């Protein structure tokens, strides 16, 4: 049982509870490999991911971020399974920001897209298997016996029919003496013989998260550190013309004020003084060109655009002709607002910029401590900002208090704040965003308008579909442009409404509608930053597609679930998910007066997921979500307990969005500012959630965002079923439907 301590301060280590003793220890913050130990036992480094100490502790270098997603636990499970080690002997350490640790899918040091389990599946298992193989070979040499006579058992090599056994740690001496190294070609376990993978495994960093000892970015304390609070222009993109800090400097604890890119930063000895000083600052702003923007204007511009031809993303069959020839077409326009991520830990970052000893005008290196999803991007941006080589920027990744995409900032905005604030100070500076700055932080799920038209065949089945999607691109003009812009269209804007694979997204809606046309408008990127938000495109395409499909089902006299079963006949994975949903919800029974069901089905990043909700609606518009049944097929379920929590979380954040979520721009300003006006769901709103995982032998795929995709349309469809009112602009609270 070991602790990694943060640099610059130590912290009492808490042992597990009396009844505890489960789980291993984790880094909150540990920055460099234990150099001393490596020098003493060079053989202890098995491969890029694993180090074994003589005391039989296994240190895993983890190259994915932990923000509640369960990455630390599932990666450790993969290694422990193949390496055959005791879960309690594992210590985790953060892998440095070097290309060898980049995600094989993204080719960057990035945790995103619900692909961590998939990306790490082969590398981590292989790393574990290499280590096991190495210790087996060492024991065979040491005991001069055939390797086939040996086996492993929780960190030991044992002789099957003999008495001898040795810990892995004790075999390090042999490895060193015989100059053994890990082989690249080792065989992996047959999934049928997994002992740990597939079992309910509790979070490896669980204890730290209940006794107050977990270290998040905001908890970093370094010697001499100053705290920063930034005065930002009320209109995003505006600049300070001048500022008067006489009242600020009178606040006890305030050290100085200075200009950084995002505004004027106040540095102080503690955060409260910095914030108090910031609030006392008098700044004259040039509000710039965004001052005239408003959500209302975006809606009306986008609605106008939705009626004009856009770029053609998909055209299966001939939708235009069918729709032209159909008398009773069905039409609808759906509107989705901006959404903030509102992670519980507000944005923050700590930075130390060091000057060259010889030439104090030059910067020699920079260290940052940041709860980031995107280490290589932060490193790259900071190196350009300070004009130093990328290797001179060290990124430390503490635990992360929620992210939902926010902390994969392409602009590294909260990191840049801290680096600019620290530059020239010779002490570390921690910039913390107040909740108000965080809500107004201008990285949002962008506002979208979808226009849909449909035609039914004589059996009431969808015959033609025409969808026009209007909203700003997330990827256009960023370094992801080449991979995510296809023929000038952002594939994220369209993810979830195309029937066929598009660009790097190798899956479609799972439905087969014979005539299917989708057009796209990505209007100019003005105002705030369009940003990834848990389930990205599906947060709007899911609502538009699944609610309109529901409209078509009703128009054609079809049951919404039957319709989807029919449409997915040629997609066995989704069809199976829907069949199980039908069974688990007793779909065909009636719920009684005032109660109703709604459902939706989505494929996000390969994993099909379908949900049915049960609601109770009162005459005054108040409604409760009583139950959600969720069926997901995510391939091999590495950690069912973790999958269940990701599904619960994905559903919760989706309900917050559909019921309350609304960021409005008025006169260039963000109207909402904190949790009193940016409402999110609380325990009293939480439905009972039942999770069913389809047994599978396929590669494990994502679960983090999948459950967010269907929940919003499922709830909106239930509102229709209960009230007969079809809500087409969100959130539901705009129309008097109040979640209780």
């Amino acid at each position, binding site marked *: 049982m070991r602790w990694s301590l943060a640099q610059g301060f130590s912290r*009492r*280590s*808490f*042992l*597990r*509870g*009396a*009844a*505890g003793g489960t*789980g291993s220890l984790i880094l909150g913050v540990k920055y460099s490999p234990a150099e001393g130990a490596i020098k003493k036992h060079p053989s202890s480094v098995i491969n890029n991911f694993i180090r074994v100490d003589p005391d039989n502790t296994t240190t895993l270098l983890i190259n994915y971020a932990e*923000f*509640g997603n*369960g990455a630390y636990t599932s990666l450790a499970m993969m290694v422990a399974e193949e390496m055959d080690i005791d879960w309690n002997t594992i210590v985790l350490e953060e892998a440095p920001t070097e290309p060898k640790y980049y995600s094989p899918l993204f080719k960057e040091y990035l945790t995103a897209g619900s692909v961590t389990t998939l990306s790490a599946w082969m590398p981590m298992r292989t790393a574990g298997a290499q280590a096991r193989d190495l210790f087996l070979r060492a024991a065979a040499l040491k005991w001069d016996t055939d390797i086939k006579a040996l086996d492993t058992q929780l960190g030991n090599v044992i002789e099957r029919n003999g008495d001898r056994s040795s810990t892995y740690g004790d075999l390090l001496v042999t490895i060193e003496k015989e100059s053994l190294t890990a082989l690249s070609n080792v065989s992996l376990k047959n999934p049928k013989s997994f002992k740990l993978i597939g079992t309910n495994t*509790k979070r490896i*960093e*669980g*204890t730290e*998260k*209940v*006794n*107050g*000892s*977990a*270290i*998040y970015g*905001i*908890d970093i304390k370094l010697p001499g550190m100053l*705290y920063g609070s930034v005065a930002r222009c009320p209109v995003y993109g505006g600049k300070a013309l001048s500022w008067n800090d006489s009242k600020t400097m009178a606040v*006890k604890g305030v050290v100085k004020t200075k200009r950084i890119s995002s505004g004027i930063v106040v540095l102080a000895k*503690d*955060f*409260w*003084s910095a914030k108090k000083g910031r609030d006392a600052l008098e700044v004259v702003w040039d509000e710039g060109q965004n001052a005239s923007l408003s959500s209302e204007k975006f809606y009306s511009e986008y609605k106008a655009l939705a009626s004009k031809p856009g770029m053609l993303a998909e055209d299966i069959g001939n939708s235009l002709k069918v729709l032209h020839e159909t008398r009773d077409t069905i039409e609808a326009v759906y509107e989705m607002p901006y959404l903030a991520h*509102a*992670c*519980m*830990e507000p944005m923050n970052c700590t930075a130390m910029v060091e000057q060259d000893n010889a030439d104090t005008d030059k910067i020699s290196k920079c260290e940052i401590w940041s709860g980031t999803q995107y280490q290589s991007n932060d490193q790259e941006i900071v190196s350009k900002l300070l004009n130093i080589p990328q290797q001179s920027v060290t990124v430390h990744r503490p*635990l992360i*208090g*929620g992210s*939902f995409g926010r902390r994969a900032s392409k602009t590294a905005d909260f990191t840049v704040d801290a680096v600019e604030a620290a530059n020239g100070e010779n002490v570390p500076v921690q910039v913390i965003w107040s*909740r108000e700055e965080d809500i107004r932080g201008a990285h949002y799920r962008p506002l979208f308008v979808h226009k849909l038209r449909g035609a039914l065949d004589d059996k009431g089945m969808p015959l033609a579909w025409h969808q026009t999607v209007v909203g700003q691109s997330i990827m256009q003009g960023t370094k992801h442009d080449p991979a995510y812009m296809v023929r000038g269209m952002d594939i994220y804007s369209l993810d979830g409404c195309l029937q066929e694979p598009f660009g790097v997204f190798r899956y479609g809606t799972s439905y087969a509608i014979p005539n299917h046309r989708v057009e796209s408008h990505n209007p100019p990127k003005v105002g705030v930053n369009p940003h990834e938000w848990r389930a990205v495109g599906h947060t709007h395409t899911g609502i538009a597609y699944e609610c309109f499909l529901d409209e078509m089902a009703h128009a054609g006299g079809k049951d919404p679930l039957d319709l989807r079963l029919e449409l997915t006949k040629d997609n066995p994975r989704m069809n199976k998910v829907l069949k199980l949903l039908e069974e688990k919800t007793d779909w065909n029974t009636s719920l009684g007066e005032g109660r109703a069901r709604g459902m939706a089905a989505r494929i996000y990043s390969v994993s099909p997921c379908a949900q049915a909700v049960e609601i109770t609606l009162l005459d005054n518009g108040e409604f409760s979500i009583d139950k959600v049944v969720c069926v997901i097929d995510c391939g091999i379920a590495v950690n069912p*307990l973790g999958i269940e*929590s990701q599904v*619960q*979380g*994905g*559903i*919760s*954040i989706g309900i*917050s969005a559909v019921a309350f979520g609304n960021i409005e721009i008025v006169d260039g300003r963000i109207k909402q500012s*904190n*949790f*009193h006006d940016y409402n*999110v769901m*609380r*325990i009293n709103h*939480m439905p*009972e*959630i039942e999770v069913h995982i389809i047994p599978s032998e396929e590669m494990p795929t994502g679960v983090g965002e999948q459950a967010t995709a269907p929940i919003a349309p499922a709830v909106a469809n239930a509102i229709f079923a209960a009230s007969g009112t079809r809500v087409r602009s969100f959130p539901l609270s705009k129309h008097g439907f109040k979640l209780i």
Partner: protein
Amino acid sequence: MTTLSVNEKKHTVEVEADTPLLWVLRDHLNMTGTKYGCGIAQCGACTVHIDGSPQRSCVLPVSAVEGKEITTIEGLADAELLNEVQQAWLDFDVAQCGYCQSGQIMTATALLNHNSSPSDEDIDAAMSGHICRCGTYQRIREAIHHVANKPSVNIK
């Protein structure tokens, strides 16, 4: 000079009287288990016990808590043990990102101290001042019921 009693230990700090207890704990006493989430008593992340009752430290000026007994997440259990609520949180694998959980555990502990078998409505009433953006509410409810159903509850 303000003297505070935190987790049964006396601390003397030099801060302005209006400084919220939250920032005294975090920045002056380096006790970072108590979290900042909203600063306006909306989210519960900063919850501590003042003489045993759960309060939002982000809106509690330090001058108001002199002479009172302050308990934080770090002092919830004796020495290096966990209290029963913390243990239930572990057993039910409640935490996701974990950031809100110090506050949730402080309020749940206080709830169970005053009401050894809370109903779902009691849980809603006590816990709805807390936000968990990761959506751990179902397991929070299960963990509270679990503690309540244990034969002898002895929570600090």
